[in-house]
């Protein structure tokens, strides 16, 4: 048995180190470690509740809006403020803008460049993939960045700036949309659809979202020439490298539900193990037995949780805590969201091969198409001249939770206030779920499980299979440890 430490991992957001135990060319055990602590939960103690809207987006520059929405929802629950329909629509659009941009960044800048590595030089698809996706010089990234920047004009218009906007308020948004701006938003989405259909999918968004089974996807794929689109090229690589056999975790999927409109979620909330079950957020706890954290003995619900660092804990190996649902490990992210929501393609893929590298990426790309279509409908529903924000006073004493789906999965903020000030603020981020260390029972986190069984290619020091698995989760380490 040999022990190997991989890190720093790049093309993930923030700092990550993975320790592997390897035997006969295969990973038998893994420990995942986040190596940065900043202490947002400590910073927030004693602040005015509304100041959370300034601090929490700055937990993370990649899902800053998701953090804003979680904070705003927690504050809304505290104050009991309601939201006009325009507020829901605006927040959905801003959040969707960030999520979709995130999925694009992940696919083009973080995930695909690994297939342009030297180790794949002799593969039949290598040249096409390397020209298109090689880090920094591939042709795809420049086209994507230009399209992404144009797409994010929506953010400029509706949220002022990205990242770190203050536009998202407990009762809606600070920025109302006028008639001509609604037209401008439509124009931005037209342009973005054109990019997606010509570069990413090589087909209409409607056709992509109506792929309803593994067979339908397969049939679609063989019809398309390899260089028709980036999705097609990915499917080729995924097939050749059997990415559907790589990186399965426990296949217990959780989603808080996404994109609320008039009290309903556009993507359902729930837990999937063998069938869809309702989600009870009261069963969430965080365990710190293997984290450099002190002052908490048993696992605690976030309302009661404590976050105080202690760099000297013996058995600890990460600044990340270990969240569990009813004591169990769950996986979150686009695949979980689409599985819980019941998209037929994802349900079929998961029933055949479970959660794995290929299916995670397919779910993310599918979601780009689904969400872009939803965005078009939300813009049409905006009613200029109607209110975008309601207001209510903040109480002196209360508690509230804000649950949201960020691009990477379920994000929750739990806040308690006393005498009008923040007494406790706890954050559980998507990557905290996926990249958690072991808990007191010794249960490894989702990535730690997913890495078991990863095979090494001949002569490899830093297995590329491990890189694919890690990045298939699209981790964000700054969120994880905040």
């Amino acid at each position, binding site marked *: 048995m040999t022990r190997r430490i991989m890190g720093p991992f*790049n093309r993930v957001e923030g700092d990550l180190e993975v320790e592997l135990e390897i035997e006969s060319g295969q990973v038998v055990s893994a420990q995942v470690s986040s190596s*940065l602590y*900043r202490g947002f939960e400590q910073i927030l103690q004693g602040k005015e509740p509304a100041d959370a809207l300034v601090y929490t987006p700055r937990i*993370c520059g990649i899902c*800053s809006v998701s953090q804003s929405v979680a904070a705003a929802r927690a504050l809304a629950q505290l104050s009991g403020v309601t939201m006009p329909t325009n507020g829901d629509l605006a927040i959905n659009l801003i959040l969707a803008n960030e999520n979709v941009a995130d999925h694009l960044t992940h696919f083009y*800048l973080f995930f695909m460049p690994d297939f342009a590595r030297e180790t794949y030089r002799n593969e039949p698809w290598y040249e096409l993939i390397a020209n298109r996706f090689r880090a920094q010089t591939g042709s795809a990234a420049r086209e994507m960045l230009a399209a992404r920047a144009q797409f*994010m004009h929506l953010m400029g218009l509706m949220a002022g*700036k990205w990242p770190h906007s203050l536009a998202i308020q407990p009762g809606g948004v600070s920025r109302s949309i006028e008639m001509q701006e609604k037209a401008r938003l439509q124009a931005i989405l037209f342009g973005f659809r054109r990019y997606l259909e010509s570069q990413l999918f090589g087909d209409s968004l409607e056709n992509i979202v109506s792929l309803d089974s593994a067979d339908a996807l397969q049939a679609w794929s063989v019809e398309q020439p390899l260089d028709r689109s980036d999705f097609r090229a990915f499917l080729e690589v995924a097939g050749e490298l059997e990415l559907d056999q790589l990186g399965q975790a426990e296949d217990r999927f959780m989603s808080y539900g996404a994109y609320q409109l008039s009290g309903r979620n556009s993507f359902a909330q729930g837990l999937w193990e063998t069938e869809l079950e309702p989600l009870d957020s009261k069963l969430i706890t965080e365990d710190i037995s293997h984290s450099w954290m002190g002052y908490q003995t048993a696992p605690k619900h976030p309302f009661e949780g404590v976050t105080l*660092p202690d760099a000297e804990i013996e058995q600890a190996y990460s600044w990340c805590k270990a969240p569990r649902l009813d004591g169990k490990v769950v996986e979150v992210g686009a695949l979980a969201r689409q599985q819980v929501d019941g998209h037929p393609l994802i349900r079929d893929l998961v029933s055949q091969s479970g959660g794995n590298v290929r299916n995670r990426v397919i779910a993310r790309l599918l979601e780009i198409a689904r969400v872009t279509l939803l965005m078009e409908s939300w813009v049409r529903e905006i009613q200029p001249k109607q209110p975008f924000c309601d207001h209510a006073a903040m109480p002196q004493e209360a508690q509230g939770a804000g649950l949201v789906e960020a691009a990477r999965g379920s994000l929750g903020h739990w806040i308690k206030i006393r005498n009008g000030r923040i007494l406790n603020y706890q954050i559980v981020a998507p990557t905290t779920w996926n990249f958690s260390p072991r808990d007191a029972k010794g249960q490894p986190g989702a990535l730690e499980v997913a890495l078991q069984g990863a095979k090494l290619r001949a002569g490899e*020091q830093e297995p590329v299979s491990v890189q694919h698995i890690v990045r298939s989760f699209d981790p964000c380490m700054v969120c994880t440890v905040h």
Partner: protein
Amino acid sequence: MSDQPTLNLLWLQSGGCGGCSLSLLCAEGPDLFTLLESAGINLLWHPSLSEASGSELIELLKSILDGEVRLDLLCLEGSVVCGPNGSGKFHRFAGTDQPMMQWIERLAKVAGHVIAVGSCAAYGGITAAGNNPSESCGLQYDEHEKGGLLGQSFSDESGLPVINIAGCPVHPNWVSETLVQLACGELQRQHLDHVGRPRSYADHLVHHGCPRNEFYEYKASAEKSSDLGCMMEHMGCLGTQAHADCNTRLWNGEGSCLRGGYACINCTAPGFEEPGHPFTETPKIAGIPVGLPTDMPKAWFVALASLAKAATPKRLKENAVADHIRVPPSRKPGEKT
């Protein structure tokens, strides 16, 4: 700029959120990669953009420190994390067992220019808020005080101190323009202001070009978020004091904080993370805002404000506290054009 020699750029991240890099990916006309290539900047490594991982990167850093690879531009994003108790253990550079703080210090000594990208790297920023649990500071400042990791007397071979592209996050063009100026050898000591910020954007006030200026003139003020009026009197806006060109340059093609309907919190300033009052409320004494516009005598401001308030047109008075334009500009019926 093809006759320029190539400059090697290394980008590191420590106690930040990655938001400055993400903001930079929003660069337009041209995109980031085209910009770097055209300016003759070779990205040795960037955590989000490079292929090299793990041991390949550590080899690269060693060869920089050994003098085998030239390091022209060192960019740090995120604060320098010194905690707990000055040990730097809160940020160990993954794969190396060493505090990031030490890597940054050693690399800064061999770098042609050292650039702090964002307010965290410049002054400590948001990461240093509250009681600063991570003991974060900037490269050459600890909030307002000079010092930081590299010490107040630090300067690079050309005599420049740390270049503080402050902002939370930075506007992509603040970075790209600074890099292009450096690549052309055009950035000199006098082009940085008193806290090390490039004057190209820091010689402006956020107030310049704010679409709410007409409301400001008449002290027609917003009272709650989503109101259209000026946000200085009640909503905590620091635009009249904040050094940046946010309202003349615009963000994401269309926006700015003020255009987005919320106050400027002066994110380019040292110590902005602890204003000493709720961010979106204006502290006042006897009804008069405590922080008055930069270089305006208080008595004048008070006199002008009460005069302006008396003369506020109905259009501004009503629109200031509405979320849509209620009263459009108009003439009375029969009035000549």
